[in-house]
């Protein structure tokens, strides 16, 4: 079981409150979580990753276990605490503005 916390705008869009819970097959990576997330909520396609390139949108960040994983490879294994559901995978709108 994977726990994902969405930013408020995407919770509104998907009409979920609280965390999203996903069942993810195989290695737990950014890519596998995002694939499962977009499969469950197709309206998220294009909002976290670019629609065509599947690259992380520039003002979206991925946090977990107190670390910024935004620049880690998409296929790198995520921390065990995320894979076991002990910690959530956070999708965050980056700080912007002043």
């Amino acid at each position: 079981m994977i726990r994902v916390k969405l930013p408020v705008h995407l919770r509104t869009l998907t009409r979920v409150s609280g965390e999203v819970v996903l069942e993810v097959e195989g290695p737990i990576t950014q890519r596998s979580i995002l694939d499962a997330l977009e499969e469950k909520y197709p309206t998220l396609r294009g909002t976290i990753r670019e629609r065509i390139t599947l690259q992380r949108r520039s003002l979206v960040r991925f946090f977990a276990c107190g670390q910024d994983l935004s620049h880690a490879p998409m296929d790198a294994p995520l921390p065990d605490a995320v894979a076991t559901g002990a910690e959530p995978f956070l999708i965050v709108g980056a700080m912007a503005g002043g």
Partner: protein
Amino acid sequence: MSNVRVLVGTRKGAFILTSDETRKEWEISGPHFAGWEVYHIKGSPVDPNRIYASQSTGWFGQLIQRSNDGGKSWEPMGNEFKYDGDPGTHQFYDGTQHPWEFKRVWLLEPSLTDPDTVYAGAEDAALFRTNDGGQTWHELAGLRAAKGHLWQPGAGGMCLHTIVQDPNDANRLFVAISAAGAFRTDDGGATWLPINRGLISPYELPDSAAEVGHCVHSLAMHPARPDVLFMQKHWDVMRSDDAGGMWHEISGNLPSDFGFPIAVHAHEPETVYVVPIKSDSEHYPPDGKLRVYRSRTGGNEWEALTEGLPQSDCYVNVLRSALAVDSLDSCGVYFGTTGGQVYASADSGDSWMPIVRDLPAVVSVEVQVLP
């Protein structure tokens, strides 16, 4: 008695204002899509309760929303705007060639005849169409063959911001792009012709009469006279009587011929509205006076419309999609400001009143008359 619905897109959501045909008392709903930029929200002419909205942010990208009940509820539609084939490159700010990159949808123009068909104007400039109510979008890529490699972004980006349909010929469309110019198709979007002869841009282009590159801000047409087009260019208000074959200036006695929107009266094809702005570097009304200008002669002779509008210390802007008219017998005129006001006139512009104040900056205004 008819009702009127005004659809307002702002920097932080959409708002829907409704009134009866007296247009005195208004109910406001919103914000819809709170916190998101809504560049445009517009209803289908053949099914007014079918409304499309372009919702975007720099954080989470582009979404398209659709309502089938007049804006009470919304459903996200398809948001894959993929350029057809290899779009190549266009001129960039530094003079280099830059790859085409989709950024957002500026405008949604529902078909005049089919509620499931909608045109979308995109940045980087391209025209997309859906025939399935917004689920899938396909580029009309022939537009880019009209010297797309010479187009370049203006200050607001390289955006296709205006789409005008010929009510007598479904195969004829007009579009405008900043900073590329105006273009026309006569074959449903397969091929396109630059229609910029007569435009002169001495401060913006090294060849002031170039075939493409002009910063066209908006176009307007009266449905009874589809060969007559009006244009607000970066500087200059222009008119064409031959579907864009040639343009001539009609700025006449305007206090400034810089501005963004232009509109035509619903029942008087020679009555035109603009909102003069001081200059390209000072985007607010001349002398701090918010004045709509009306020509009843198809241009050149303009009168200031001031009753009910602030005539001192007003420094708002009126953006290109933020001026609209309704089709009631006494034509209503509406515009929104970057200060968050929407002003309405129920008497063709003779007098005005704010129908809402203190919204986020208004990006677009559209109006529907409901049976």
